[in-house]
């Protein structure tokens, strides 16, 4: 066991990690940040996406010891300072971009990284970027709509017929 110290959501946090301990397990089990979810064991589903030094990564592909000292942002650090939902989170609620909520943290973290890289993505770009995040509930329609809306684009033409 080795002590690992990270800056998580702006706070310095430490815990013990074996050489094999994944960042996803370290966040969940050692630091108690259970918002990061683990949906697979082959780095396919994206439920565990967090930001490490500003980059979106699947935290199940990172060893905790390898990111000693890194700046990590998890879903718990995404809301506005007053606790209200940020623009992207609010768009997910407004456009029903989540159902069971399990893939949601990874989806929000990935989408926020997309918007940082590409502030006005096309629908095809959103779908391509989120290809590494699996959602079984929503059929993606409303996730894509939420991300487009969060980027300030008009999504009225993707509104389902009433």
């Amino acid at each position, binding site marked *: 066991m080795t002590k690992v110290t990270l800056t998580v959501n702006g706070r310095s946090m430490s815990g013990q990690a*074996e050489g*094999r301990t994944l960042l996803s397990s370290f966040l*969940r*089990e050692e630091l108690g*940040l*259970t*918002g*990061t*979810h*683990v*949906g*697979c*064991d*082959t780095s*396919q*589903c994206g*439920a565990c996406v967090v930001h490490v030094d500003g980059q979106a990564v699947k935290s199940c592909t990172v060893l905790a010891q390898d990111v000693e000292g890194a700046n990590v942002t*998890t*879903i*718990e650090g*995404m*809301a506005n300072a007053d606790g209200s*939902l940020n623009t992207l*989170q609010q768009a*997910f*609620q*407004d456009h*029903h971009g*989540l*159902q*069971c*909520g*399990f*893939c*949601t*943290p990874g989806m*929000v973290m990935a989408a926020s990284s997309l918007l940082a890289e590409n502030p006005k993505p096309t*629908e095809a770009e*959103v*779908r*391509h970027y*989120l*290809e*590494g*995040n*699996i*959602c*079984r*509930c*929503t*059929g*993606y*329609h*409303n*996730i*894509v709509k939420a991300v487009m809306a969060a980027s300030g684009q008009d999504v009225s033409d*993707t509104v*389902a*017929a*009433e």
Partner: protein
Amino acid sequence: MPKDGGIGASTKRREDVRFLTGNGRYTDDINLRGQAHAFFLRSQVAHGKINTIDTSAAEAMDGVIRIFTAKDFEGVGGVPCGWLITDKHGQPMQEPKHPVLAEGKVRHVGDPIAVVIAETLDQARDAAEAIDLDIEDLPAVVDMKAALSADAPKVHDELSSNLCYDWGFVEENKAAVDEAFASAAHVTSLELVNQRLIANPMEPRVAVGDYDPWNDNSTLYTTSQNPHVIRLLMGAFVLGIPEHKLRVVAPDVGGGFGAKIFHYAEEAFCTFAARQLKRPVKWTSSRSEAFMSDAHGRDHVTKIELALDAENNFTAIRTETYANMGAYLSTFAPSVPTWLHGTLMAGNYRTPLIYVNVKAVFTNTVPVDAYRGAGRPEATFQLERVVDKAARELGVDPVELRRQNFIKADQFPYATPVAVEYDTGNYDATMDKMLELSDYAGFAARAEESKKRGKLRGFGIAHYIEACGIAPSNLVGQLGARAGLYESATVRVNATGSISIYTGSHSHGQGHETTFAQVVADMIGIDAGQVEINHGDTANTPMGMGTYGSRSLAVGGSALVKATNKVINKAKKIAAHLLEASEADIELADGKFTVAGTDKSVDWAGVTLAAYVPHNYPLESMEPGLEETAFYDPSNFTYPSGAYGCEVEVDPDTGEVEIIGFTAADDFGNVVNPMIVEGQVHGGLAQGIGQALLERCVYDADGQLVSGSYMDYAMPRADNVPNYTVDHSCVTPCTHNPLGVKGCGEAGAIGSPPAVINAVIDALQRGGHSHVTHIDMPASPSRVWAAMNAK
């Protein structure tokens, strides 16, 4: 315009805030003081005799607390099956024992053999590797027809064969059906596979067992769609723990789709081990484990025949289906290919004679049970494929052939020859709506444009019916269900007028916390924010049967309406007393009780306060308090229906299918929250499109699971699916539940696979590949290309 927060409003979901901020509380987020970790050692072979299990080296390893094998479960019951099917000879199905841990034999890859309990999960996993197993390989059976041959290896030595049951429905109609085929002007037949799928909710299963020895209380936290069902099955049949000593909690659950209905060995194990060790025991499934331990879905092989007369009227349907049960009978497995499938074979049509034969077969594979739609997608796929094929053979428009044979709007209620009575529907209306929204009239021009680009465009139609709102208890009891299928609700009005609801329905993505509150708020006329929904804990909710079969609003919502009406009736009595008026004159509107025709009124909170501070209260005739419980047992199923249209483009060089557009026009009856209903349809469509184009669970001939991870099992991803056009404006309200609702959770997964495959066939036919009349799902590029290029 519906009032915000009331019935009919697209109220935003209150549960979203916790999910969007990482504050959901899923089972794996629960860690109890003193918790130990369980790791299941599972069979790597499909069929084998267990000679020895040597755990001595593993037991000596760091952190190991105890290792369990089958011998620790002597005197403990097996995992029970909840549905008994009677075969066509009147005999009960063959029902093998399903031990918690494998006894003597392993019967599928993933069958649990031993469990290591250790201080940490890593220690448990390391120790499991040190268990010395001597398992003698036995020949495995994977293919269903091979499993029924006389010399096939038996999955269960104590059974007479691998045949679970041979079911005929309606057996008495068989001769008449055969006669109709003999005299038919035209017969269309089709052999097809409804492939094995894996539900894959994104949250893997988790179980945490806890035990309080001082009070002899057991608690199980589990990823379940129906905690009361788990308590019933595990308490009564496996562990022998009475209900008052067993609490089952299903907190936030990350999707279910059927796979989390069933009672699993791991749940019983963790509850049992916690009692043995007197400390909490936690098991978290890895995704790899989920692939080989969650119940799978579908896996039917069918021959369907449709008889038509000279005027193209459907005269009879005959089917023969082989249904894979896997190695053991999962909780509701036997009901899926029978009552959830055979009863839907009439579809939307007036076919007078139907005979359905189903042979359920044991194989050395993971057990198969209900997956989104459960039996109804299998029925719809057969029917809508064979109708399409018939239209092509007869040279008639597939829309017109369907319309000609539709049960017409003025023919409801309509009793089908497969034992169900549809209460309402208007199939022409949904067909019209779909054709309009998909611009079917403009298809020919679009196909021409595709052709110029070297692509083949096709349009596929499917019209589905499903039976939801499961189910009348007396009926399902006659059909072999070993449980009732009512639902319950308690409405607890608090002194200040806020309301706490306790429901037996469970939400794992459906948004009940929002929609159930809308229903109650609307009935009373208060703000939905005053209504809180509690679910998922047997300790505080009334006995309920949980969520599956699109039943929550139709059955659970009806219980809620019933209980709320009881509350309102009592509140009116209190109001009458306070207003010194006759109860008959009291009207409730917008949260205010008024004496009809006067300005005398008392508001909701005034009445609720009087109920709990009964200073001015008719104590001689009425109890204080304002809390009511209701159970609702439906008198019939509900019958959502709809028309689905899929437009595809096929690349003739690669066989790749692209979905250009998908239109769903559903009749769900009345709708409480349109936003949520549309989301349910979107999700169902993605799963149906996944089945049609991507997903397939593959076993090799030795019973190895080839598609055992997301690297091999193709889940639909954001760039595999289109935007959907969904509509629910065609409304024929359900006639027998108070909200007039039908259920919307499964429709998308039921109607879309045949629409997609019909579209692919249409594209190929239009492209000159007239020899291609069927492609089995998934219509992968290799399959489509091979079909096009078959000589």
